[in-house]
Each structure stands twice: as structure tokens, then as C-alpha cells.
């Protein structure tokens, strides 16, 4: 890892010194050992802040949106999931490729900071769930690449958790989701970190539109949850950030993965964030789509 870290610093230095980039976004060490947190480097003198360790979980691509109206040329370090997020943002026309330099970093999976926070110091920290299920640890798009590609440890999408819910009876399902969404405090961290939730003005920030009141209860929270899942259906790049940032531990990916599973089954396997062109499942149709409404 340290090789990658020094190469990161060297790359950042070169980019900033040459003027190819005015900003480099990477990770620095945070408050706790398990906090590796985004950092913006503008000066070659600061590149030693950059680190690469097993907690560089956070997706940096969404920060590119902040620079669309500045004069900056922004370089970001990007793992496989970050590059899918990058494609998502390109496809949604939220960022333009000519302002960005993507430095791909193959990733071997990140550890769960949430688990680490609960475990005693020195204990073995498990990999994040999304990382365990990751099929694209290597960058799918990049301008440069650091390090060697790794062999993906998953080839198939793992829907066992979704299937476990599907196997429950109706009352158990309802009770499960009600419990989960009772916890939601509607802080919108899941939305704000999501690369697919990139609207400039989310419907949940428009209380006057009448879509949702600010009342907090399981019903309203579920409306938020299922609506957000529907909005990212066919667009979710499975980074799992939503679930990782949730202060209430709501299993948000269980919603997203349900849509992914059904889209694959009904309309054919689809991988969001691999391409920047072509139809997205829900803004497209086939005359031959399954017919069960006759």
C-alpha cells in the first residue's frame, strides 16, 4: 500500500507543479485510525497529507460537482466504484470530462469504519459489505493509473440478502422495513453522498411541492426511502456509500439491490456506471418487455 501512497503523492505533486491540475482530491488521515477522509490539495507542498490505506472508502467523484463553475482543473483518485460514480456523473451531465483528471487506483476492498468504531483497538476489522460484494475493484475509466489491477473477488451479483427479505411473509417484511425506517432521522446523508443522487434540487428539498412533509415517522421515512431507491433505480453504481454514512444503520442497499435484481431479471442484466452513453433502464423500454398486466 505504501508504494501506492508514495506514487499518489508523486503524481499529485507532478500534476500540481506542472499546472495540469489546480486541485487534487484524495484522502488524508482523519480523527480516528479508521477515519480516512477527503482532502483537497491545492499546493504541491501539501501532497504529503495524501494517504492510501484500508479506510479510503469514501467516493471522491461527487466532489467534482463542486468545481463545475470554477476555473479549476481537478484531479481525483478513484477506485473502481469511484470511476463508476464518475461515469454516472458524466452520463447525468453533472460534470464534464475535460475539467477532470481521473487517476485510477485499483482497490482490494476497504474495511468497515463503522465496524472498527465498535471494535476494541487492534481487533480484526471486517471488509465493508459493499466491498465484499464488489465486482469492479479496478477503475473502469481513468486518465492515469496507479498500481496493478487486482483480480475481482466477486463475479456474480450477490442477492442473497435481498432474497432473504423476499422469502419473508408480507407481515414480516412490513415489520422489518417499518423497524428500519423508524430509525431514519432523515438527515439525508445517504442522498448527499450518493453519486446517483446528483439533482441540483431534490424533491425532498422542496417542501412546498407537497411531495413530503417534514414530519418524521416510519411512513414518511419509508416514502423517502423507497422514492430515493426508485430515483436511483437503474442508476445506482453499488458503491454502498449510502449505507456506510447512515448514522442510524438503515440497510439502504437492500432497497437499491432489490431494484438492481429486478431490473436484471426483467429487462436484462445492466451495469450502471460502466458507460456514459446509451439508455438507462428507466428512460428506455423494449416492446418485448415482460407483459404481466394483461
Amino acid at each position, binding site marked *: 500500500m505504501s508504494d501506492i501512497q508514495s506514487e499518489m503523492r508523486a503524481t499529485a505533486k507532478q500534476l500540481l507543479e506542472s499546472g495540469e491540475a489546480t486541485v487534487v482530491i484524495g484522502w488524508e488521515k482523519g480523527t480516528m485510525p479508521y477515519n480516512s477522509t477527503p482532502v483537497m490539495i491545492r499546493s504541491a507542498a501539501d501532497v504529503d497529507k495524501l494517504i492510501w490505506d484500508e479506510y479510503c472508502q469514501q467516493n471522491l467523484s461527487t466532489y467534482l460537482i463542486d468545481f463545475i*463553475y470554477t476555473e479549476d482543473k481537478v484531479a481525483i483518485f478513484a477506485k473502481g466504484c469511484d470511476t463508476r460514480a464518475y461515469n454516472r456523473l458524466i452520463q447525468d451531465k453533472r460534470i464534464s470530462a475535460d475539467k477532470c483528471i481521473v487517476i485510477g487506483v485499483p482497490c482490494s476492498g476497504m474495511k468497515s469504519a463503522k465496524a472498527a468504531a465498535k471494535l476494541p483497538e487492534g481487533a480484526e476489522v471486517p471488509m465493508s459489505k459493499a466491498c465484499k460484494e464488489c465486482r469492479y475493484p479496478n477503475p473502469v475509466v481513468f486518465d492515469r493509473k496507479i498500481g496493478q489491477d487486482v483480480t475481482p473477488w466477486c463475479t456474480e451479483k450477490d442477492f442473497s440478502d435481498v432474497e432473504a427479505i423476499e422469502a419473508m411473509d408480507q407481515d414480516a417484511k412490513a415489520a422489518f422495513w417499518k423497524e428500519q425506517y423508524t430509525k431514519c432521522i432523515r438527515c439525508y446523508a445517504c442522498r448527499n453522498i450518493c453519486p446517483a443522487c446528483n439533482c441540483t434540487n431534490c424533491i425532498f428539498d422542496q417542501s412546498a411541492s407537497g411531495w413530503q412533509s417534514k414530519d418524521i415517522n416510519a411512513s414518511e421515512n419509508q416514502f423517502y426511502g423507497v422514492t430515493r431507491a426508485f430515483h436511483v433505480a437503474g442508476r445506482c453504481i453499488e458503491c454502498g456509500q449510502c449505507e456506510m454514512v447512515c448514522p442510524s444503520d438503515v440497510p439502504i442497499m437492500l432497497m437499491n439491490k432489490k431494484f438492481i435484481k429486478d431490473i436484471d431479471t426483467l429487462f436484462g442484466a445492466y451495469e450502471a456506471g460502466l458507460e456514459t452513453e446509451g439508455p438507462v433502464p428507466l428512460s428506455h423500454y423494449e416492446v418485448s418487455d415482460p407483459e404481466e398486466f394483461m
Partner: protein
Amino acid sequence: MERVGVFICHCGSNIGAVVDCAKVAENVRNYPGVAYSTDYKYMCSEPGQEMIQNAIKEHNLNRVVVASCSPRMHEKTFRACVEKVGLNPYMFEMANIREHCSWVHAGKNEEATEKATDLVKMAVSKVCKNEELQKGHAPVTKRALVVGGGIAGIQCALDIANNGYQVDILERTPSIGGKMSQIDKTFPTIDCSACILTPKMVEASSHPNINLITYSELEHVDGYVGNFEVTIRKKARSVDIKKCTGCGTCMTKCPGKADDEFNMNLRKRTAIYTPFPQAIPNKPVIDRVNCLKFKSRENGKDVCGICSKFCPTGAIDYEQVDELVTEKYGAIVMATGYEQFDHSIYGEYGYGKYPDVISGLHFERLVNASGPTQGHIVRPSDHKEPKTVVMVKCVGSRDPEHGKSYCSRTCCMYTAKQATMIRDHCPDTKVYVFYMDVRTPGKLYDEFYNRTREEYGVEYVRGRVSKIYQDGEQLMVKGEDTLLGKQVEIAADMVILANAMIPQTDSEKMAQIVGIGYDKDGWFTESHPKLGPVETHTAGVFLAGACQGPKDIPDSVAQAGAAAVKVCALLSKDQLETEPTVSKVDTKICSGCGLCVPVCPYKAITLETIQERRAGKTIERLVANVNSSLCQGCGACTVTCRSGAANLKHFTNAQILAEVDALCQTIL
């Protein structure tokens, strides 16, 4: 402040006998927004409408709900009614308490009254969120496009042109004329088809308002009623039409040979050709597939060139390429006609392999004086005159399993016509007709059919043919005479099948290009089966002739005239009113992701760059923009739009939510 007037209609006893209208009016009197509520016997009547108008004035109402019949019935009536006293017509809503309530809940008066109350509350809640809308205006390009140059297209173009409007005829083959030019005689008058068609063709070609675009295909249609932008592919003719005089020398010299599709492949034609002698324009094209020069070019050589050598005007141009041109039109008439059903799927008729089992259109060419046999009725196999002819009707028609479920309408009559022609040309030849039913609804049609049997001695056998097989030189036709209840077997010299009429093979693609509907068989769909037979659901696109469904010549001509009138009515306007119930994008909310763009069936949404002041800086960003003339108001974009930036006027998110909430609030 919303001040809604609610008017509950009894519709005589239609509603009043089931729904307690006075109670409904009472139930909603205190409902939020309601300022006035009453009931009346006939709301749509003159006094009923006056009552609404007076109440608007007297109670200072700014919104109106009428609970009565279906809005599909009287929405227009009441909109006009409220508009007369100064209310915007879109500040009106209807609650359907007749078709959706009293008529379907007879005897359940209490529940129906409760349901009617709910429906009225929903309408009130919606109307409170309604906004004043103004109809838009769009200019009109005073020029029409007729797609298809058959008799329907020609007639339609002539009618439009004679009304003083410019019209283009787009024809994919080298000549106009269509199927009618292949037909020898027409029923029930047995007059010569060419004799009545060719003058029309000449008239069309020489009309100052008509422009012929032959050997060309419809490529793409953009725009909307009054303002279509049509891209046309002018296929390479390989002949400079301006230089060509139509002398025909090239055709006499051409060594290339090809099947003559105009003559149903009953003879060969040259590779440079006009489909038939009276073709218009009477200027040849080179069939590049069969031209020796073009064939040799595929192999890296370059031979022949005889036509070019002999052309006195130097009109041959081997280097021509397809040309795409874009033209503007105010209206489009689809007159793309039909195809003949291919009977080779039927094993019982020999899979199309027996040369002497021919279709009706083959026969037309056989019997035509300028056809391959100079009008002699002979067998294709040995050119002998047949002594026994069997005709089979409903080949492909009325056969949902293998063919088409519909009746092709014309076959009974053309079979009768052909039978009489055989008897006329070859008085010694016996003619049998196998039929399921004989359908002759048309002026003088049944009389013609009776003459065929009685005067011409054609024998009609009611039943299906179960098998045709070759037996020596003859064809054995086995079938059942269901009237006599016995098997019959006829040794025939020739069999003529009355093949069904089917849509053009690419009719579905055509429909998609133009943006109109088509049915399960591929016929274009009219906007209403009875009241809109030549209109389509796409404003400004009309139908003429058999592309809408099987039709004979008089029906096609009549429909062509009808379509022409609709086109002229459209082109006579300087501006078109457009419905305001279209989608609109709130650019403040829109992120410009563009997901709505591919969803729009009318290509009404484009991404545009706008300038915006943000934190003291002017920035540029993409947002979606809806062309309100193109938008037809389906709402597909509104659901695709996650942030709710795209909203459908008169069916806004807030309005629909208000209805949902109004219905549900009584559930506790």
C-alpha cells in the same frame, strides 16, 4: 383565495335516481375552498348553464366544479360556459358521477351518494390547485406531403392542389400509379383501369401545385402539426432526370435482365427501366442490383456502359448517390397502400411452387393487353389456354391461425370480375369459385355478382379447398362443397387465389417514423373508427386509402378526398391553436441530466444552455426545454424527472396529489 362553485347535476333521473344530488351538494358545502354548492336537474341545459354563469357572478366564484356525466362528453360545453363569463376555462373540473357512479351502482343509493361526494371532493381539491392556462399559437407551413403515389395519394394530392395549396407526392418506386396501374379492369363496370388512372397521373404531374418526388423514401419526420420537417431520401436514379427526355433508347439497348416486378415476374425487364410504358415520370432508373456495370464494379471491374453510350442527351450518371433533403410541410397524408398476401405459407396451395397457381394480381397482368401475354389468358407454365379455372377466395383473409383475421373486402368483387373476364376471353373455359361467404356491399356490386353466376355461368362452390396438387399437366383441386355436404375434386388447368390485402411490409416502421399508431396487423390506426376515419392520433397526419385497412378503389378515392379536406382545413389557417396542457420544465429545479429527452415520443425536449447568476457570477448550465408546440401532454417526462422539474400543466404533481389526498382523507 379559492372560491369554488360546485354544481351537482341530476341528469334527469340518470344520476338523480341513484345519487342523492342535494345531499352531495350539502356534503361538500363546507369543504375547504367551496364557496357555493347546489344541485340542478340538467346542468348542461341552457338554464343550467345560465345558473352556473349567474352563480359565478353573484358569488364571485373563481373556480367551478360540475358533477355530472363524463368529461369526455361535456367538458368542452362547460369550459365554454364558464369562459363566457370571464373565467379561464382551465379553472373548471368535472366529476363523473354518471358513467362512473349512478349508472354502475344502480340500487346502491347510499354508497353511490357517498362515492359521488368523494368524486366531487377530489375535483374540488384539484380545481383549487388549477392554474389559468392560455392556448398557444403556432404558424402553419402551407404545403402538404402525400406519402404514396397510388390512386389514393394522387387523388388526395389533386384535391389539395385544386384547393390552391402546394403538395408534394412522395413515391418510393420510379413511377406514380400504384397498385391500380397493375390492374386491368375495375369492377363493377369493367372499365379499363389504366384508362381512368393515367389521366389522373398526367394531371398530377402537370399540376402547377403538385411536385412529384419519385424513387424516394421517407427517412425521418420531425416537428409537429403545421410545422413538420421531413427528411426524404432521394435514391440514386443513375439518370439525370433533367437531361433525360424519356426516349427509351437505353431500355432497348440494355443487356441486363431482371424479373419484372410490375408484371408479377411473369416476364423479364431490362436493368435500366421504367416500370410500365405509361409511367410518370416516364424516365428510367437503373436497377443497380441487376445492372451489369454495377455488378461488375462489385468485382473490381467496370464493364458495359451501353446505356450511357446510346443516350442521346448524356443523362446517364453512374456516379449519382442517394441524396437526403429536408422539406417543411404543414400536413402529411399517409397513402402508402397495401401489399398482396404471400400464399406460399399455405401447404394446401402448394407453397407457391406450382407455376399455374397464381394470385389475383398475376391474373391482372395476364389479362392486360400490354402485359406479358398481350392479354391472352394462358397458363404461365406452358402458355396454353386453360380450359378449367378454379378460383379460391379468402386466401390469407379470415384465417386468424395462419393468415389475417380480417376480411380483405375487395376479393369477392375482384374474383367475380376476373371470373367474368375469363368467361369473356375464353368462352369455353369453365370457372369454379370456392368461397366461404360472398360479401358484396357496394353500389351495383351484388348485381354484378349475380350476373357472374347467372349470365356468365361461373360456378360458385361454398367451401374451403383442402388441397391442390399437380397431376400431370393438371392441378387437382380437392375441397368440400358444404352446401351439398360432399367432397369435390376438380381437375383444373389454372388456379387463381384471391390473396388478402396486407399492409406494406415496413408499415410499422413508417408509422414509427411519422409517429402514428398501427394495429396488430400493421394497418395505420385512425383517430376514431367512426368519427375520425381519416385522422390519426397525431395532429396534422391523415390517412388515405388502403394503408388504413383493406379498401377498393372507390373507397380509397373517397377517403383521399376526405383527407384532402382535412388537410385544406388545416392549411387554410394562418395560425394553429395549441393545447396548453403540456409539459413545462422549471429551470430553477432542472439539473439538465437529460433523462427526459429520450423518453419523449414527440422529440419535444431538448437540452439548452441557460445563463444564470449564482453567487455573483454568471454561469452557464444545461437545462431541459419543452417545445410546447411539439409536446402532446402525455407526462412521461414528469415521472422520469426525479426532481420534479418537469411538470405537466393541468395534471401537475400538486394537482394529482391533491386528488389522492382528498380521496384518502375520509379514511381514518
